[in-house]
Every structure is written in C-alpha cells, then in structure tokens.
C-alpha cells in the first residue's frame, strides 16, 4: 500500500490521476514492466556502446575469427536468453491477472448504466431513484455521466453506428463499442471529481470532438442530481412520439 502511494506520486500521478479501484493495478503492472524492460534496455545499450568503443578500428588491431558456434562464447547469448524468458514469465503472470480482474471477473453490480456511442457523442441511460433500468424515471443524458463514488457500476456499451471506444483515462478504462452488440464491463470510481471520457477508436469526422465527462459525486450529491433530473412525466413525454433510440441509428437515416 505504501509502496503503491509512493510510486504513484513519483511516477504516474504526474501524468494522470487514478480514480478507479483498478487504476492502481494497471499502474503497478506498468511500473513492473518498466523496471524489467528498462533493465534489459540499459544493459543492451551499454553493452552495444561499450563493444563499439572497445573494438573500434585501431592501428595494428586484427579481428578475431569467431563463428558463434563455440560453446564458451555462445553461452553469452544463451544465459541472457534464459533470463529474458524468465522475465517474460514474470510479466505474463501479473499481466494476465490484471486483465482477468478487470475484463473477465466482474464483481456484482451496485448499479447498471447504459452507454450509447454514436457519431460523435456519448449518451447515457441511468436508472432513476428506483435503481432499475428501462423504467419511466430513467435519466437520459448526453455527454455527461453522473456516478456515485465507491459504487460498483456495470456498463452496457452499445454503438448506434460505427466502432467507437469508450475510454476514461483516469479510470484506466477502455472498451470498444461495436454496433449490433452489447458489451458489458465494470468500474468502481473511488475519487470524487470530473474526468474526461474519450473515444479512442477512429469514428469519422468528429472523432476528436467526441468528448464526454464522467462526474463522480458523493452519495448525497448524486441522489440530489437524480431527483432533479428524473421527472417521470418529462421522461415519459419524449419517449412516446420519439422512436426508440436503438432504431434511430444512422443506418436508419441512410435508408
């Protein structure tokens, strides 16, 4: 825990805040890999430059005839090679563990939100005070996702047209949205604040403008926000004449 805080402060927090529970596990994996490959990089570069320096052309220096098949010399390749394999394993195991915890094992959800990607906006459907999706008090927003801190959220990710990617750098969250599919994932924000939502998959003209914000609020703030925005009468009203959001895809417009 202490180790984590120190390293974040020194290495990673400078670049981007960590606002979800799994952000640190990705950061630590990053640092682990950085340490291992950094070591190899430095060793290899130092050896490279040292050899170039030591064996630079000099008066009267003759070269040694080495085929590389000699056992005592090939050892110098084989031993580092074994160490590289060892490092690979040291990286693979935690990499898969981190992946497993984030993408495969989904902790039970406290709340579920629905995320729609379209050219070039994010829209969200959040359950109202009743906590259930697809009821009259659902809150539908564009560009802003309001969530409660320290709550496990599942998201159902959909695309209305092309491939997008739902990314919240501060949460270390990234998941492509595919048209015709619903992809579920999870996050658990643990720091109050406002963070960027990006689209990280080229989605056409306005790709760079497809910004959103996720607003992590305290329990009270979020409840207040929900009350303000989930007016069942308002919610029901546009729902009746407007076509269901799934059907207003651009594909529909095209036809």
């Amino acid at each position: 825990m202490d180790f984590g805080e120190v390293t974040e402060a020194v290495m990673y927090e400078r670049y981007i805040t960590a606002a979800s529970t799994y952000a640190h596990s990705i950061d630590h994996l990053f640092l682990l890999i950085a340490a291992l490959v950094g070591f190899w990089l430095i060793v290899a570069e130092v050896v490279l430059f040292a050899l170039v320096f030591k064996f630079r052309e000099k008066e009267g220096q003759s070269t040694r005839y080495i085929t590389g098949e000699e056992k005592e010399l090939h050892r110098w390749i084989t031993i580092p090679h074994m160490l590289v394999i060892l490092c690979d394993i040291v990286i693979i195991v935690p990499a898969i563990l981190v992946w497993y915890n984030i993408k495969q094992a989904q902790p039970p959800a406290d709340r579920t939100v629905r995320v729609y990607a379209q050219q070039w906006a994010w829209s969200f459907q959040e359950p109202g005070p009743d906590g259930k999706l697809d009821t009259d008090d659902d809150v539908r927003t564009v560009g802003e996702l309001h969530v409660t801190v320290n709550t496990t959220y599942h998201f159902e990710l959909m695309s209305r047209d092309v491939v997008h990617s739902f990314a919240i750098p501060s949460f270390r969250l990234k998941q492509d949205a595919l048209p015709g599919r619903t992809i579920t994932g999870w996050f658990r924000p643990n720091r109050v604040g406002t963070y960027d939502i990006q689209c990280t998959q080229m989605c056409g003209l306005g790709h760079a403008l497809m910004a959103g914000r996720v607003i992590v609020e305290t329990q009270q703030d979020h409840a207040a926000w929900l009350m303000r925005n989930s007016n069942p009468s308002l919610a029901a009203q546009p729902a009746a004449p407007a076509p269901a959001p799934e059907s207003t895809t651009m594909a529909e417009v095209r036809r």
Partner: protein
Amino acid sequence: MSEQVQHAGHDHPEPGFFLKYCWSTDHKMIAMQYLFTGMAMAMIGGFLAYVFRMQQGFPNHYVPGFGLVTPGRYNEVVTMHGTIMIFWVAMPVLIAAFGNYLIPLMIGCDDMAFPRINRLSYQIFLLSAIVLLGSFLVKGGAFGGAWTAYPPLSASGAYNLTPIGATLWLLAVALEFVAFLLGGINFTVTVMNSRAPGMKMFDIPILIWMIVLATVIFMASAGPLIAGAVMLLFDQTMATGFYDPVRGGDPLLWQHLFWFFGHPEVYVVLLPAMGIVAEIIAVFARKKLFGYKSMLYSTWGVGILSFVVWAHHQFVAGIDPRMANVFTVTTLLISIPVAELVFLYIATLYGGSIRLDTPMLWALGFLAEFLIGGVTGIFLGSSGTDIYLHDTYFLIAHFHYTFVPIAIISVFAGITFWYPKMFGRMMNETLGKIHFWGTVIPFNVIFIPLFMTGMAGDQRRIYSYAQFAEQSRPALQHLRTTSTIGLLVMLSFQLIFIFNFFWSMRNGKRAEANPWRSTTLEWTVPSPPPHGNFAELPTVYRGPYEYGLPGRADDYWPQNAPN
C-alpha cells in the same frame, strides 16, 4: 582491376530511353524504379507528417504550405501518412528495391527468374500509387478512416463522408498487394532455383534469407486480407452486409482479417531491415556473423510466431476476453527470437575492428533505436497494461520506434552502403555523418515526448485536444510542441541527404568494384554492374561472412574466390 572484365557472355543492344527507364526488365532498373517511387512517396508521407505535427504542436494555426487543418483534413492526412509510409515506402523500398537489386547480384545470376513478371509488378505498384494519390483530388477528399479502415466506418459513405476516397483507398491497397504478391513469388522462386553453383542453403547471405522469408510471410498473410478487401469493396459499392451488423455481418471479421495480415506485416518489413543491418555490421566490424544458423532459426521462429499474435491489436475490441490471455502469451513469446537476434547482432561486434563509416553508423543506430521500440512493445503486448495504453500516443511512439529504424534508418544504411554499387560513385562521408546525427537525434526528440503524452492519456488521431480537459493541460501541449520542433529539424536534415544523394551521383569519388572490401558476390562485379551483371557467372565456394580468417593475407575471403 581484375574484376573489370568486359562483359562478353550475353549481348544486349543498348535500348532507347523509354525501354531503358520505363519498360525495362532489368532487375537493377526495376529496383531503381521502386527506390525512386518509394523515395517520392516518402517525401509525400513526410510532408503529411509535417502537416499534422504542425497542427499538434500549434493547434488551429495556419500551416505554411497546407492551410488550416480541419478535423476532416486531419483525418485524411493521418490516414494517408500511415498508409503511404507502410505500403508505399517501407514495402517497396525495403523489399522490392533492395530485393530486386540485390537478389540476383548476391546469389550470382544475371536477372530475376521471371523478368517480365517483375516489370508487371512495378507497373501495378505504380498504378496503385497513382490511384492512392488521386484520391486526394476526388469529391469529399481522400479516405479519412485510419489506415486500419475499420468497418462500418469504412464501409459506408454516410459514415465516413468520403465515399469515393474510401473506395479508391481500398482499390489502391488491393492493387499494391497484387504487385507485391507477383514480386514476392518471383523473389522466392529466383532464390530457390537460380542460385550460383555451389551456393548451398547456408551460404546464402542473411539479407537474402530475410527478404525471402519476408515475402513468404507476406504471401501467407496477405491472402485473407485480399479476400477481406473484396468483401469491403462490395460493402461499399454493392450494399452487401459482410461487415454490417444490421445485415447479419460482423465488424470484427475485418479486424481479424486485417490484423492477421497486419501483424505479420510488421515482420515483413522488419526482416529485410535486419538483413541489411546484418550485412553492414559484418562488413564494418570485419567479423563473421555471430551464429549465422542461430540467426536463421530465430528468423524462422519470428516468422512462424508472427501468425499467432494478431489479436493483441484487439484486446479491447470486444473479442472474447479469454482470447486475450492466449495472445498475451504468444506475443511475449515473440520477444524470445527477436531478443536472440539482437543479442547475436551485438555479439558480432565482439572482437571486431569496427570502422564507423556512415553505413555502419546507420546500422548501429538501427540497433540502438530498435531496442527501445522492441522493449516498449512489451507494455502493449501485455493485456493488462494494454487496456490503458491501447490507441494512445504511447502506442504511436512505440510503433515509430520500430518503424523509423526499419523504414528510415535501415534504408539509409542500405542506400549509403550499396550506393557505390548502384551509381558507381561514393557518397560524401562528412555530409553523410551530419545527416545521420541530424536524423537520429531529432528522431528521439520527436518520440520521447510522445511516450509521455501517451502515458498521460493522449489518444491518437485527435486533431485538437481542446475538448478534453485532462489533455489540454499546458504541460502536455509543451511536449507536443517539442515533438513538432524535433520533426521540423529532422525533416530539414533530410535536405542534406537529398543533396548528397544527387550531388554524389555526378561529383562523388569514383567507386571501385569493392570499396568496402566485402565478401559477397555483388561486390565482384563492376560498379555499377552492367546489364547481365556477371561477365562470367560465379561459382560459390564458401559462406558469405569470411572475415579476419587467421593465416590469410587479406582479412576477407570472397565467396567466389577458389582459394
């Protein structure tokens, strides 16, 4: 000079200008056509890089020589930069130009096995380049859906808003593939069947091995993508639904087909680059390559493994998350043969007598920079960190730390090394060294800041970060501006190369047949080699890297010298 024998064996009448420069079946002329087309495309690709780096460094300002970079223009420019640099620069220069020039010379025969197929290959390639560049001029502009062209964006004009540009892009890529399939088949057959008498499997120079393996990898991986391109073309023009989920298709299918090609493609261009570097290191260190056979087996290992790692580009693309675990393992496995290769290269230096001429500087520069590209790949190949780093500038920086050494540094190594052979004159060494340092140092200035912005979450293909609060921090903007200035300096220094290249062609010191005192067969013919290459076709007696053999007067022993 004993090598400068009048070439008597086969009489070829001197052809006219058109036949000589545009309709030639001579492998050397076709290589030059590929080289110059590739260089012209590199300049276009470099200009595009200048345009979008200017927009990144100085957002929303007028870019001199281009104008205002709108979001649509930006997308076009980055898409075309990627496409051109990979398919129209790296492939033609590394494989086609060096392959065409060197294969017949290095294996000791007079031409490719099928010269007319060779000519056709270049003509199709040229056509594809024209189609691609023409797409800038059509209504709606060039394709702007990224070089990976994921459908449904690329499949429908209503989504990408460049209906004609998208089709032309696809057409150009497909034509280019056909060109390289034809060329690659020719290379493989030539090396398999037309080697000089006595040249056994392990007497083939490593560069030729690597070019052939690269073309075999290309042939095996490009097929599915050609099929995929036909399907995408039909989606665009005939309203089929291969990739459209509304019509029962699957957008992931393209991603699989694309990356099944796309990842081996990295090794398709890497291997010839490694080959060039190996040749140069052996010559300038005056050393036999350390473990020629280990090198070959590692190369084969890379080739085979490259077919089972493609899905690491799709960790977060919505594939089954369990697949990511398999592909993490295979991806990290590929570090084993690649590390082996790099270790062997470095070990070759041991006990040598290293002369730091320009080609050697480039070759060593390749090793030093490619190492950085290689190790940063581990971050992206590990599924855990890839969740965060996928499609960020960290990826861009990693990718360029592999591709700039491959497509720029090793090409400069190759050009400076074989220039005397190609044009019969030496390049200017001083200018060459200035160009080297003026390219390699700014190259690091460009991409090290991009590693940092990537770690800070900058996503790629974004013309302006104004919409993202976390990304529009001034500190990050300073990094982007630094990177842009690095690019401007690097591009400026390429003028030195261009000057040196053309100036030396007329004014350089005349080159002997073998200015670098090398052992391989291309140095036994006059510079430049005549039509038909060898006055007397050579016989090979030994492997290609016999340097510093004890007990001989010369420190090198040419492959064709009987004793």
